[in-house]
């Protein structure tokens, strides 16, 4: 059959070439000096984690690779407060163990999950997401593990160990969490949790009563698991307030992110939903969230949202947000979205204009100042299922995409996945911001692996003033890339510590840097982007500038603090001042 297909293709090609001329094949990228490059240091750093995938109910087995296509994730925090960022990887096979790599500070790591008490989360259910948060404002990062099954919360004891407090805290949500973030939505100084959920919480993928467990629409599905907003009550317990605040989104959420999109001082939410419209929720003073739907624009898409991350890409104080989607030549060219609010309050998709629209089957996307230029670039984790490279499920999927929802939702109408690939072995992308245009330089700077990546975290592993990259890959080894700079650019890094009524992690703090007359806004986030939580410190490059003219911090409490004439190339630990709190 393969030879028949090749014969057909050759015949067609011969005929069409007469009409078209030869189609050019771009040459492979050569290493180019961009002032920085990446070197893989996974092995020498001692990180040997390999993510594992699970299997599901026999009734659903024909598309098991589809079900087992998410879960790889990495979360970054300095859990032991030694000044160096540690890495926690989640695993997604029942019986497998998560790993916690303690950063020794010399470029090597020590795996300590077992003794720390955070390894065994996959006895019942499987881990799919993790987020560090200081839930009790004691100065130590606690750990929430979002699962397919019962999610778990681990309290950091401050001595290198953790105690599970799931039951006491009341955060043992039983469902299918694919992303967890933290935010202080009501600005009470306590970090809350928002969980993006995928499958319906009423289904059991390991012992399924039905084969109808999927999307009831390829473009407008709203029959997924309802998202959860756990409000931190301040007494060690949490309450799910998703319904009363209006964010119990039943879309098939693969990623959720939070930022103060409309700059009113209250953190908003964006859900990147698979097989249906994403949801943008604007926070109404911590009481409720209001959905924003703009015709043919934000909240009205029919794409396969898988990621959201925010950055002041245009230096205008308006956070642009990157939403990843799918591009596959021949089959589907939906492309990524880059939403940016215009003067009329409309969110305009500028992905095409900037050149970030296509990056394959895109999952995690993280903005970072990769070259310390003062501009945000974008690292991408992509690739779906890499199996037999000679077999492709895209043809099967292309047919399903044209069938009505009641056909799609039933797995028995799907052709067996077998050992087929689907958007597998994709080269990664790193969109370098060059004077307002973004160009994919991943291959040129040394990021050449082709595993199915899910998340990418930006983290300064040795506190050297550069952002390294850590990739969490599905059913594949994690990979660590050291960022080597040759451009002599300067930088500044802020380690923010909030004071009540701010949360201690200062999640939601909004900082405006002014460098050489250029203003850049950064917010401290609570784990935005699919499959990863990045370095919690705010890192911004300064180019050749040697001093930051001013750093203005709007703390979550509303207090404003201004620092002026700050020297470059330092990690600045800033504690929120004990001044009067403005009226809200």
């Amino acid at each position: 059959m393969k030879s028949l297909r090749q014969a057909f293709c050759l015949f067609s090609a011969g005929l069409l070439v007469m009409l078209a001329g030869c189609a050019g094949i771009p040459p492979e990228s050569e290493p180019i000096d961009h002032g920085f490059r990446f070197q893989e240091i996974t092995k020498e750093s001692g990180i040997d984690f390999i993510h594992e995938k699970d299997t599901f109910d026999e009734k659903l087995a024909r598309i098991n690779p589809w079900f087992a296509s998410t879960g790889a994730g990495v979360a970054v925090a300095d859990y032991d407060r030694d000044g160096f960022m540690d890495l926690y990887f989640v695993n997604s096979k029942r019986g497998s163990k998560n790993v916690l790599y303690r950063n020794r500070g010399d470029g090597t790591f020590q795996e300590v999950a077992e003794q720390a008490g955070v390894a065994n989360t996959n006895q019942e259910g499987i881990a799919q997401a993790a987020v560090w948060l200081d839930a009790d404002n004691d100065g130590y990062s606690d750990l929430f593990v979002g699962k397919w099954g019962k999610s778990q919360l681990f309290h950091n004891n401050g001595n290198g160990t953790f105690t599970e407090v799931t039951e006491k805290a009341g955060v043992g949500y039983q469902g299918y969490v694919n992303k967890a973030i933290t935010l202080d939505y009501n600005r009470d100084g306590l970090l809350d949790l928002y969980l993006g959920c995928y499958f319906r919480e009423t289904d059991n993928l390991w012992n399924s009563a039905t084969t109808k467990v999927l999307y009831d629409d390829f473009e407008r599905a709203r029959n997924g698991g309802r998202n959860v907003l756990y409000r931190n009550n301040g007494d060690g317990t949490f309450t799910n307030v998703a319904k009363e605040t209006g964010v119990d989104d039943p879309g098939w959420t693969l990623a959720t992110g939070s930022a103060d999109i409309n700059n009113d001082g209250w953190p908003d939410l964006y859900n990147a939903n698979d097989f249906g419209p994403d949801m943008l929720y604007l926070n109404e003073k911590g009481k409720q969230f209001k959905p924003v739907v703009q015709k043919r624009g934000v909240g009205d898409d029919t794409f396969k949202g898988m990621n959201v991350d925010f950055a002041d890409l245009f230096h205008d104080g308006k956070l642009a947000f990157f939403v990843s989607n799918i591009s596959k030549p021949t089959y589907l060219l939906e492309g990524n979205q880059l939403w940016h609010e215009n003067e009329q309050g409309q969110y305009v998709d500028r992905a095409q204009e900037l050149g970030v629209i296509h990056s394959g089957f895109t999952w995690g996307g993280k903005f970072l100042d990769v070259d310390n230029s003062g501009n945000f670039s974008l690292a991408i984790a992509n690739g779906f299922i890499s199996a037999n490279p000679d077999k492709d499920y895209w043809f099967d999927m292309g047919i399903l995409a044209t069938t009505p929802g009641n056909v799609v939702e039933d797995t028995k109408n799907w052709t067996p996945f077998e050992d087929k690939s689907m958007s597998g072995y994709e080269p990664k992308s790193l969109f370098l911001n060059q004077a307002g245009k973004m160009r994919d330089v991943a291959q040129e700077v040394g990021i050449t692996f082709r595993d199915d990546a899910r998340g990418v975290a930006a983290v300064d592993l040795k506190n050297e003033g550069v952002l390294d990259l850590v990739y969490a890959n599905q059913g594949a080894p994690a990979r660590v890339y050291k960022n080597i700079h040759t451009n002599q650019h300067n930088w500044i890094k802020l380690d923010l510590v909030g004071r009540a009524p701010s949360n201690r992690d200062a999640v939601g703090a909004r900082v405006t840097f002014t460098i050489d007359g250029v203003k850049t806004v950064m917010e401290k986030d609570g784990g935005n982007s699919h499959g990863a939580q990045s370095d919690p410190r705010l890192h911004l490059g300064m180019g050749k500038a040697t001093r930051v003219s001013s750093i203005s911090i709007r703390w979550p409490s509303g207090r404003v603090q201004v620092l002026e004439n700050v020297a470059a190339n330092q990690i600045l630990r800033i504690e929120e001042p004990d001044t009067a709190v403005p009226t809200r």
Partner: protein
Amino acid sequence: MNMIKRLDPRYLILAFLLVFVTVGQLYLGFFQKWSAVFTSVGFAVATELFFFRLRKIRQFPISAIISGLGISLLLSSDEGWPYALAAVLAISLKHLIRYKGQHIFNPNNIALVFMLYMLPEYAVSTPKQWTNGYEVMVLILLLGFVASYSAKRLDTVLAFLVSFVVFALGRSVFFDHPWLWSLGPVLGASFQLFTFFMITDPKTTPPTRKARIWFAVAIAFIDAIMRVLSITNSLFYAAFWVTLLVGIPYRYWRSKRAVEIEGK
């Protein structure tokens, strides 16, 4: 029915496509925006007028409007130029590739084949379903039947639909494909546009009922083979190959036979 029969079928097809476009833009959130519609139609009309001038034809470019609308529905691209290129190709090839004064290939079909095969990184065929429900689909089907009846090509449509279903059943039985998956394309937007709009083109389908039925069955058969081989966009390729390998020899045979009959 008589009124429908008397009407120039192209106006019904135009109405049919305008309903597709309008419903798609206003209610169904089509991937293609208005700009794609205007680009396709604009370039198709401009190209048509250029060739009209070259060939000294004075005529309202209704066929070009139909072609432009069809391209804007059948093609999906995040850029504007593929719509323009497809429209220019469709109309140009219609005027350039002719036999006995008539164009050979359905303009949109050959343009689609070119775009989908040569430029798959920039354009794909619309991978859509009408809202994933059945209500809009039923409306589209009804309009399609009326339009094809008006164009006197209902036989072609029915032959194609029946043979596609039969081959789908065969694929399901012999290749163990889920039945609804095999039948699935019938429920998709591209398939319906292809069935009611492309293979009903009076200029590029055979003049006799018997030949049209065989034409439709042949397309469905080639399509089924390509589906077994996992070749995507098989409908468009199948129509292209059938026109090339069967349609052209058939036309040659018919014209030769007509000359022989006249000679007698």
